[in-house]
């Protein structure tokens, strides 16, 4: 009896069943809160022809960018891309299909996919290239476009803590798209920094209930920072004081 224990033994097992031409929804914003090791595992597996749904596509040597050199990505649905040279080259050469989607619409499309809402209206993108081919309808005198939900064959998610039942807690802005991606995968795979005892998380404080999680693994993370901006240390603070 496995019950609700979602923990798997290896990253290989975590992504078992991921095959060519599938759609993968990934959490993360920039390099913050990305499922680093699950991405590495996709690279290792060499799965090809993937459609990726993610706000960004990483950088040259980190994040989803590592899937570019071996041409594992066929298409990406994202709001902001091109932080790396290989991405730009493939996009310009027509080797990589890019569907630019406003960030809020992208988030809502994931949520809708997970929530059984096939489509919704939004004012975002009305009158812009994003509206091309989409229905426009007026509600209370304002125009809105119809946007459809997104579902992934797999969702890959990074959380902070989890119990073995897959109840998740995220940390600070590493939350971002992760809880939404978690709801929108036919198979949702989550990697976390720490797995804690079932019952030790306050039921009122769980960000993602375990019902959305199929597989869970504990990993170690580099957590690379894109823009390391700082201020000088406060001069009023005396060391050791």
């Amino acid at each position, binding site marked *: 009896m496995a019950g609700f224990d979602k923990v798997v033994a290896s990253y290989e097992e975590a992504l078992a069943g991921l095959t060519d031409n599938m759609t993968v929804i990934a959490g993360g914003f920039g390099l913050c809160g990305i499922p680093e090791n699950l991405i590495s595992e996709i690279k290792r597996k060499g799965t090809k022809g993937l459609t990726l749904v993610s706000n960004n596509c990483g950088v040259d040597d980190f994040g989803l960018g590592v899937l570019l050199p071996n041409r594992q990505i066929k298409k990406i649905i994202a709001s902001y891309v091109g932080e790396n040279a290989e991405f730009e080259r493939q996009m310009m050469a027509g080797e990589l299909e890019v569907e630019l989607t406003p960030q809020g619409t992208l988030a809502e499309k994931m949520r809708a996919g997970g929530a059984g809402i096939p489509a919704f209206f939004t*004012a975002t993108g009305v009158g812009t290239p994003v509206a091309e081919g989409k229905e426009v309808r007026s509600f209370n005198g304002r125009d809105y476009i119809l946007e459809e939900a997104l579902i992934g064959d797999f969702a890959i998610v990074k959380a902070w803590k989890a119990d073995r039942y897959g109840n998740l807690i995220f940390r600070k802005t590493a939350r971002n798209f992760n809880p939404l991606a978690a709801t929108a995968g036919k198979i949702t795979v989550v990697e976390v920094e720490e797995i804690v005892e079932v019952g030790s998380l306050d039921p009122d404080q769980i960000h993602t209930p375990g019902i959305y999680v199929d597989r869970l693994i504990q990993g170690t993370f580099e957590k690379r920072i894109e823009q*390391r901006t700082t201020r000088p240390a406060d001069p009023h603070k005396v060391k050791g004081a």
Partner: protein
Amino acid sequence: MALSREQIAQRVAQELKDGYYVNLGIGIPTLVANYIPQDIEVMLQSENGLLGMGQFPTIDEIDADLINAGKQTVTMVKGASVFDSAESFAMIRGGHVDLTVLGAFEVDANGNIASYMIPGKLIKGMGGAMDLVAGAENIIVTMTHASKHGVSKLLKNCTLPLTGRGCIKKVLTDLAFMEIKDGKFHLLERAPGVSVEEIIQLTEGELVVNGDIAEMKL
């Protein structure tokens, strides 16, 4: 003389009101945070999922899990809250943010804005900009009035792909503060030392000049 980036930020900051929730875009808008008047409180929303963004961290405070929409490491103020991206854009799209400040390549007299794409050149994506311009009631666009070659960016009709249609009502450039209504730019203030004639010359869209136009106070 044309305003510096800092001066633009300084003038925008005068539009802030006590208790405002504000979203500041990347570039000049980010600088606005440095000029918040001492006698009011505002709370900064960052669309990656943070309400109550604070200053940059000291080296000791750096936290890879705490960044803003520009992917810069930041801190949180007291009373901050963190949420997912759907909730963040529920706030934005639902009109809960009091003021949004963002940059643009072009704005036109119908309130259209182009800010995210130059075909064949810059196609990195719109990020949250389309949601921000569609969601906010109150938007200030900050931009340079014209290109280095003197080509106006305040147009009859935008030439670049739009970020939003008919959503911009206030524009602050290095030369002037303007309101957009009824298909026209209306000059409200001019940068110190900049003449009305100069502004008219560098504004392609119809510009309404009503009476004496005061200089900005910085």
